């Protein structure tokens, strides 16, 4: 948009492999795909939490040992953390003006999100398998 108008490079040359069109479409699509998946998953999660509200450890263990419950919970966790890190990336890109801080905070948020995803999914599997 504000590129030098006196450049000898052709518009096509500037757009190919450079410019703004890198992975924007993939990121946009990932956000929408995870959003759509989360509509039924969130409803399931809320209904499940209401059902589990008085549960102690034994009752939770019994519930998560059901293959369907464990599967949907793991889907919910994977999609939730994927959605969270991609949304947080956009927020940080928009509001953190310092380049170094922006990159560092995006890296930190992504690492934390995927670490929490791994911990929560492994925790579900440990209980579900009764290890």
């Amino acid at each position, binding site marked *: 948009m504000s590129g030098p108008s006196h450049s000898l490079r052709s518009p096509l040359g500037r757009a190919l492999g450079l410019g703004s069109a890198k992975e924007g479409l993939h990121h946009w699509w990932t956000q*929408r795909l995870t959003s759509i998946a989360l509509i039924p998953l969130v409803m399931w999660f809320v209904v499940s939490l209401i059902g589990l509200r008085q549960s102690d450890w034994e009752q939770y263990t019994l519930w998560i040992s059901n293959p369907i419950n464990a599967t949907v919970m793991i889907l919910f966790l994977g999609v939730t953390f994927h959605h969270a890190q991609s949304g947080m990336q956009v927020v940080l890109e928009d509001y953190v003006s310092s380049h170094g801080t922006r990159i560092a905070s995006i890296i930190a948020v992504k690492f934390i999100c995927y670490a929490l995803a791994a911990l*929560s999914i492994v*925790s579900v599997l440990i209980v579900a398998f009764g290890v």
Partner: protein
Amino acid sequence: MTQAAKSSARPLSPHLQIYRLPLAAWLSISHRATGIGLTAGTLLLTWWLAAAAYGPDAYGVFSDFISSPFGLLILFGFSFALFFHLCNGIRHLLWDAGKNFSIEATKRSNAFVIAGTVVLTAIAWLIAYL
């Protein structure tokens, strides 16, 4: 600000502190705010699931926290943010599909988002405690 912009005598657009944001703009920024809050809330979700993997004692510690007044307050805020982000997210998906862009349609979907959030939050907590 560049030198050219500084020396220009053209009027400036109203600053955010002066400009009265339309309702749709408040809901839009709230979508980001609730998204950040929900991301922070995944710490609680992970605590719950990991506590269960550590055993009954760790699970009891989490249960005591989440059923305390402070825990219930956090859970209520989490549920409200979740339902808002869900309702407003559905509106964003419809916008992405090229629908409901008129001012009238946007006013309607404002009402849908606010009413949906309040009704879903109320239903969830009424079912949980009645």
